[in-house]
């Protein structure tokens, strides 16, 4: 069982995030009457904030008429939800079986070295973070990396660096 590191349950909102809370409340209106929409509600929060802050958990609980503990329990169960601000590009590097024996460790190292960060640490410009994740179902692209939900592979250290260069070019 993985205990996923996250922010403590105190406010992580920046000044001016009130507008984002209003945005989230509007999005939740569509989900109120849909049974079992907790995951979609958490996705909505993550789309608005890049992560799920404690205030969003409270709001989802209120709007969906659920105990806050249950919403928090769901949030912490699924690995794709973030509890601290996440980067614009989340680079998910597969660490399992096929990718591992095809060179995934070198890909992860190349990305971290190039970014000067460790796994789940966001770069100062807020653009990138790496994650070391369970099988992505991209074994034909071994070793594979997902940039948000975009599929990349097969990669090696050099291709991983050019992937970063491409992403940076998008931002330029």
């Amino acid at each position, binding site marked *: *069982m*993985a205990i996923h590191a996250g922010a403590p349950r105190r406010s992580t909102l920046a000044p001016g995030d009130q507008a984002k809370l209003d945005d989230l409340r509007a999005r939740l209106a569509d989900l109120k009457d849909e*049974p*079992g*929409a*907790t*995951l*979609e509600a*958490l*996705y909505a929060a993550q789309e608005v904030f890049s992560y799920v802050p404690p205030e969003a958990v409270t709001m989802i609980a209120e709007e*969906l008429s*659920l105990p806050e503990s*249950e919403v928090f*329990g*769901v949030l912490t*169960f*699924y*690995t*794709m*939800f973030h509890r601290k601000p996440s980067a614009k590009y989340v680079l*998910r590097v597969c*660490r*399992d*079986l*096929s990718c*591992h*024996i*095809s060179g995934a460790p070198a890909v992860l190292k190349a990305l971290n070295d190039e970014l000067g960060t460790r796994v789940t640490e966001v770069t100062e410009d807020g653009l990138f973070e790496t994650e070391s*994740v*369970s*099988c*992505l*179902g*991209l*074994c*034909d*692209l*071994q070793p594979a990396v*997902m940039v*948000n*939900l*975009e*599929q990349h592979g097969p990669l090696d250290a050099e291709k991983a660096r050019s992937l970063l260069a491409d992403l940076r070019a998008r931002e330029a």
Partner: protein
Amino acid sequence: MELVVTKNFGNPQSWTLESYRNAGGYQALEKVLNEMTPEDVSELVKESGLSGRGGAFFPTGLKWQFVRSDPKTPRYVVINGDESEPGTYVNRYSLELDPHLMLEGMLIAAYACNATLGYVYIRGEYGLGHERTQAAIREAYEAGYLGQRIMGKDGFDFEVTFRRGAGAYIVGEETALFNSLEGKRGNPRYKPPFPTNVGVWGLPTAINNVETLSAAPAIIENGAEWFQNLGHGEATGTKMYCLSGRVAKPGVHELPLGTTARELIYDYGGGVLDGRPLKGFKPGGASSAALGPEHLDAPLEPRSMAELGTIMGTGGVVVYDDTVCMVDAAYRDALFFEEESCGFCIPCREGTPNLVQILERILHGQGTMDDLDLLEDLGASMMSSFCGLGQFAHQPVRGAVRAFRDEFEAYILGR
């Protein structure tokens, strides 16, 4: 060889309704609605021998009959697209390249089950699969294949809701998937009662894998005997096998169920990467115990794999060459299951990290021969786990110890 579930993959824009209809799509559904009763459908599918392609190989037609026989309504059909087994990516291909085939299969199942509601549940990481499946659902609604009075048939209504996961292997377990659909943590539920009687929202539910449902239209069109003859004996039909690991050409191949690993790896996968010697292979994803090269000619189907002490699993064949350390490979499997254990029951929650610790000890040269027995004992105790995750998590480790014991001993004895 005749293809069943991948036949449209090469068509231009194969994921669109137009392309699907040009390839004869939704004609099986039309035949079902005009010429068959729900009983006819489940009997035909039973006769075909189609069984659950997610790895459990439960007879599909029987499942549909059970759901239809339960008086509670509404009944559900749920598509399990939560494929997350390491080494497995066949559903991804179907979701990206032929979502209508799966939807037509779902509608055939709905008719056979007298079901009126459905969910398509896809793992959170399959972004392109989400887009194309959602688009296919919209197209199917617009064309009258979903909704009320489908294809003009009075009394045949079926509504589908699309849902995505958010990163959790355990949700591929059918009852855990129901909890996830209901907006909860993906812990599994106790069985019995089985989903056919008490499924999502406590109602009768036919939950089928993407690949299983994708096979249904062709069975309706071509008959049970045709499907039987595609396979090998009791292993009827085809299976999407997928290759990864130290193989020259990773990829998906639809082949008769019961194809041997030798054919798959050497005839279709181009052999071992760089022509190196084969050390072993996993027949079906991380949960399956690896086999040595002496078993290359065993058919990849459930019964033969069970006789060899492993499982057919998902058909995700992972190839190991002589550069792969089998102790490290077993350690990777153990790490995966430690990460993915939901933490609900003790044998799995405590067992998976213990497997990791013992293997770390061995890898660091601090293991003892007793540790090999300990792995066996620990595995045996994990058989009391609440669901299949814990019951299978130790199999790849114990299997590696059995088949590649000399490598473990080399670490322990410092050779």
